[in-house]
């Protein structure tokens, strides 16, 4: 605690020097505070509450709407897991767009946390011959099956290992999150991720005001800024409140299952017990908590 205070005071003294740099980009004292904000993970409860309150006010002033930003921590005894039924998925991409809406992903430039790959039945799971831009009149197409891919929530996440500033970490409930205010935008995590699950805000993100989801989590779907990385969080704002992720709810064929891996009676555990599951790229030892299975 003491160490952190001295760090903070050191930063305050540094602030004079940095202020001149900020002044060039037309910033005020509030953005100076934001600029000097430390890594969210090491902040105290009170500091976090202040940041959340400021964020809600800032959003309200900017968008003239009420916002609720949560910083609810992980609940003890929960480790989230996901299961996806490859034999049911029809490749309709409803999950992709439900995710975009729920998680406030930029519409232009376009960001999709879920990518659905179309694969040939004769080849099996083969990324090199898959197509993410399939666009027929009707899905599913004859001879093809579909593999939706999002963050696999690895137990051994390469993205966390490589981040030079600890801006991304695994929460106790197994969700890997990003502190958007701490990410420097070096994109090393994107190079490290074997699943293409991390996405970068190459430009200023844009969402029509009326479409912004005002129920937010600080480490999840709050509004992002230019130059930071974002990713699927299993809808941390929903699942920590006991709801299903948006992609699970929207799926019209019930291919997506979600639950607590530590609860032996959960649906995910049922699938692990009674169906045979596979994980993607198991040779890389990333140990995903996202399982694929064949329900039929």
């Amino acid at each position, binding site marked *: 605690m003491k160490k952190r205070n001295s760090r903070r005071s050191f930063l305050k003294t540094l602030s004079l020097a940095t202020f001149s740099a900020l002044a060039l980009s037309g910033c005020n004292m509030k953005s100076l505070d934001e600029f000097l904000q430390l890594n969210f993970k090491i902040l105290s409860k009170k500091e976090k509450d202040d940041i959340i309150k400021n964020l809600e006010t800032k959003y309200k002033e900017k968008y003239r709407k009420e916002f609720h930003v949560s910083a609810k921590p992980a609940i003890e005894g929960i480790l989230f897991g996901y299961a996806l039924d490859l034999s049911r998925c029809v490749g309709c991409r409803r999950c992709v767009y439900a995710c975009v809406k729920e998680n406030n992903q930029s519409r232009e430039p376009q960001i999709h946390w879920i990518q659905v790959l179309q694969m040939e039945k004769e080849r099996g799971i083969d990324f090199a011959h898959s197509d993410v831009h399939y666009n027929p009149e009707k899905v599913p197409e004859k001879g093809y099956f579909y593999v939706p891919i999002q963050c696999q929530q690895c137990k051994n996440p390469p993205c966390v290992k490589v981040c030079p500033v600890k801006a991304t970490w695994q929460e106790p409930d197994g969700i890997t999150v990003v502190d958007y205010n701490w990410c420097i935008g070096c994109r090393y995590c994107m190079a490290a991720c074997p699943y293409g699950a991390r996405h970068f805000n190459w430009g200023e993100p844009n969402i029509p005001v009326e479409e912004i989801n005002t129920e937010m989590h600080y480490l999840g779907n709050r509004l992002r800024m230019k*130059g930071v990385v974002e990713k699927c969080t299993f809808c941390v704002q929903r699942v920590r409140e006991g709801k299903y992720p948006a992609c699970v709810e929207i799926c019209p064929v019930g291919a997506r299952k979600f639950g607590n891996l530590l609860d032996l009676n959960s649906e995910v555990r049922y699938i692990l017990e009674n169906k045979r599951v596979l994980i993607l790229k198991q040779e890389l030892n990333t140990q995903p908590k996202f399982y694929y299975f064949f329900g039929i």
Partner: protein
Amino acid sequence: MNFIRFIKGSIKIIFRGSVIYYAWVTFLLLLIIWGGFGYSGQLSEGLIKSNMRDSVSWAFYIGNFTFLVGVAAAAIMLVIPAYVYNWKPIKEIVIFGELLAVCAVIMSISFIIVDIGNPLRFWHMLPLVGTMNFPSSMLSWDFFVLITYLLINLIVVIHLLYCIFYKKEYNKSIVLPLVFLSIPMAVSIHTVTAFLYNALPGRPFWNSALLAPRFLASAFCSGPAILLILFQILRKMTKFKIKDEAIFRIAELMVYAMFIYIFFTIAELFKEFYSGTENILYWKYLLFGIGDNKEIIVYSWSSIIMGCIAFVLFLIPGTRKNFATLNIGIVLIYASVYVEKGICLIIPGFTPDVLGQIYVYTPSLTEIRTAVMIFSLGFLLFTFLSKIAIAIIFDNYDIDALNQKKTHKLKLKNY
């Protein structure tokens, strides 16, 4: 106080020069302005002005960074023989090698800064004030070794120039250990930079133990090439004396490096193409393109052809010891390694991407302009530092010369 006078004296030298010197500086300044306006567009609108996207998330900038780390590392090419074996014809030119290393490190760090989404948040990476992910992240290692290498070279070269300026004997107990330290440091900056890519099992193109050795070998081709050109210019334009023998010796060392590089690359190609696993896709994309996506093969084959011609020119004693053919070889090998590190190393790592999709990348105008800005800034810095070094080492610009001028001016005033 003495040191301030040394700095003041050095700054004065920068402003003195021939018409050619001023023309060169103006040319660089114009390039910096042209590139700077390109970069300012990226600053305001974001990296969307580059052609990088989620599929190819690192590209030309990080490639330039890698190339320049190699140039910086190659300074040891000259430090090892000169300091360790007290090799007379090379000793005087070690200072220029170290100056080049200093400029190259500064340029490489600049390429990282333009590549990150939030350059103002760079302090998050510093130990104590930020939360540096050390020792887990290779990027934090790279930052650490680059800064250390920069400091070592700066201290050595400033101390040497300072002592010549004050006509003192340099402090051996400081300089020698630092120089001995700088040798493993030079190896480590390029090794750690290779590990940056190497340690990503999700990118099979880089996940080969030969990557770091290939990095070092290619650096020993491109780094000395710049110095060979510089020495010839200095020899013509200043009192700088360097024997042909020394230049040919450096060229000879470069041939060994080229041979090792070619051998390593052939070993890599054999393993990939003979095994023929799905990981061969990345090499196929680099060398032949996949389907209609052949944009990158212009870069890969121009690099290969230039490199092979340079190898032959350097290998045959007749062409190595002929300045016309030697210089053609120097330009070719430099361009070859630049294209190899700038494009051919990075892009196939991301194409096809981890999900097998192909996004065709070539650098955008903004990326090229930003690169021109950084290279011009680096050349400008190197020009200034070399000018100071030349004046102090060869033109007897020392403390007496500085004082004489002052007293001369005083006398004029008294009149």
